[in-house]
């Protein structure tokens, strides 16, 4: 068979591998979602559709525990992502709009430090640190740890966004005698909004999902959703855990989807 010009690009089987990749990525999540709607008490037998385990999560015997854990998780995620997004926005402004300076590379390195250090090492480090300075482990220590490791996740989309904004808007505003502060709040911030929202959502998910670091720095008896789920799973996977997991999964997917579409909007035109 004669080779067409475009043929060189396509390889037999690569499409099938892509399909396999997506199946591998999604199959476990889809299976758990389906089984969370199972009417049966057993996780092996399928007895038809039911919302029984969702009701159980909200009003069953373990509901108080999970509600408190969910409350802790969401409060920490909201506070941590707000603070780290604010810090990341300022840092991105300095790095992308602050010219060349000696500490620039060091600053970028410091911001990405939490991404390079293995999570378990960060967890050990944070535990040791809190132990050394003598803060009692609890919600505050979880919050502080989350703020630190959420910064790079907030920083990356914000910096990427700012690099994509022509500085002609800022120049024009300054030509018309706007102060730099005004240029920042009236021009730069609105233009960066998609990046900031996207950074906020990503750091929110990262905080909401964190297990390893939280597990190390949480005090005895204080749980977030992931640590509560981990504790429950150690006794075996139960249907109510699958219902909680499905809800948490839905939150993540919705937020990532919003983040994706927001970051694609072009408001510079």
């Amino acid at each position, binding site marked *: 068979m004669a080779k067409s*010009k475009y043929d*060189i690009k396509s*390889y037999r089987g*690569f*499409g099938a591998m*892509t399909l396999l*990749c*997506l199946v591998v*990525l*999604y199959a*476990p*999540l889809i*299976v*758990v979602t389906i089984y969370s709607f199972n009417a049966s008490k057993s996780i*092996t037998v399928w007895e038809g559709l039911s919302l029984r385990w969702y009701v159980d999560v909200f009003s069953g015997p373990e509901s108080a525990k999970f509600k408190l854990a969910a409350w802790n998780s969401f409060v920490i995620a909201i506070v941590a992502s707000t603070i780290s997004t604010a*810090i990341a926005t*300022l840092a991105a402004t*300095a*790095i*992308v*709009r*602050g*010219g060349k*300076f000696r500490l620039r590379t060091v600053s970028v390195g*410091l*911001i990405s*430090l939490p991404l*390079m250090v*293995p*999570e*378990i*090492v*960060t967890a*050990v*480090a944070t535990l*040791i*640190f809190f132990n*050394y300075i003598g803060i009692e482990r609890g919600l505050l220590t979880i919050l*502080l740890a989350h703020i*630190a490791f959420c*910064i790079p996740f907030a920083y990356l989309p914000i910096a990427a966004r700012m*690099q*994509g*904004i022509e*500085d002609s808007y800022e*120049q024009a505003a*300054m030509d018309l005698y706007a102060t*730099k502060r005004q240029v*920042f709040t009236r021009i730069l911030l609105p233009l960066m909004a998609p990046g900031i929202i996207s950074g906020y959502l990503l750091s929110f998910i990262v905080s909401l*999902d964190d*297990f*390893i670091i939280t597990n*190390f720095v949480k005090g005895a008896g204080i749980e977030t959703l*992931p640590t509560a789920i981990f504790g429950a*799973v150690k006794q075996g*996977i139960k249907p109510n855990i699958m219902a909680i*997991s499905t809800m*948490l*999964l839905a939150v993540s*997917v919705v937020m990532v989807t919003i983040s994706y579409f927001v970051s694609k909007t072009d408001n510079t035109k």
Partner: protein
Amino acid sequence: MAAGATRGGGVTTDTYKEARTWLLMPAWLVLLVLSLAPVSMILIYSFLTKEFRGGVIWDFSLAAYDQFFFDRGLFGDEAPSIEWTYITIFWRSIWQAGAATLLSLIIGFPTAYFIATRPEKVRPIWVFLVTIPYWVNLLIRTVSMKFLLRDQGPLNDFLMSTGLIDSPIHIVNTNFAVQLGLFYSYLPFMVLPIYASVERYNFSLSEAAADLYATKWVALRRILLPAIKPGVIAGCILVFVPSLGSFLAPDLLGGAKNFMIGSLIEEQFKGNAGNWPFGAAASMILLTMVLIILLIFARQQAKAEKREG
């Protein structure tokens, strides 16, 4: 003053030159105190003496590293010989992470290539599809994997109903289950950098090779692969490094026989039975390994960039 220095497609200016110190201050403060200082403290703690109910006594000691590498008998009075327990755990972690990396490469490379050769408009959608699972809670993903692979789980049910197997395959609590879990955890990290480098690849090079009678697979191996090597290496590192220190996959899918570094470290800080200096020493050894890998990688990338000019 419009120093619109455009490099690599990004706009960087010096509009906020005067304010940059103040703008960076919060990030510096938070990260120095909550990230750099704690990591440095691991080094100090690894040279302290353990306290029996968790925590440390501030006496300098090499006991943690000694315990890691040497066996001095039950009472510590015998001639030291090499202690294999922990070296074996590290070696197993390297092996498991390597296997997971290989699995990810086998599935991730064709996927990345396939996506990068789609029409430009639909590429972001494919990339998005591959990244969604990464943002789902790692714990939930690992639990889902366990649920799927269980002896009475949907996978075995499905295989038995098709008649391919007669009795369930035991996957959970094997090395393979851990490899699958790690592979599943970090697969998107393999796809993204390879995708990025294939997308930048100039396909007329492959066409030129084809014109000179190279077969497709020769063109792939001799022309495409060398050109996108940095992306492939980046993908491998992004899978290997987090796999090496992972905790959830080995803990939930592996069982006690398939202990990895992450679990070894975690155990030292759990309750009163642990040994903090030993956990700190194990963390230091892991961190050193990771930093060496990243350093070699950074040097290679810098070299590759120089070559491209």
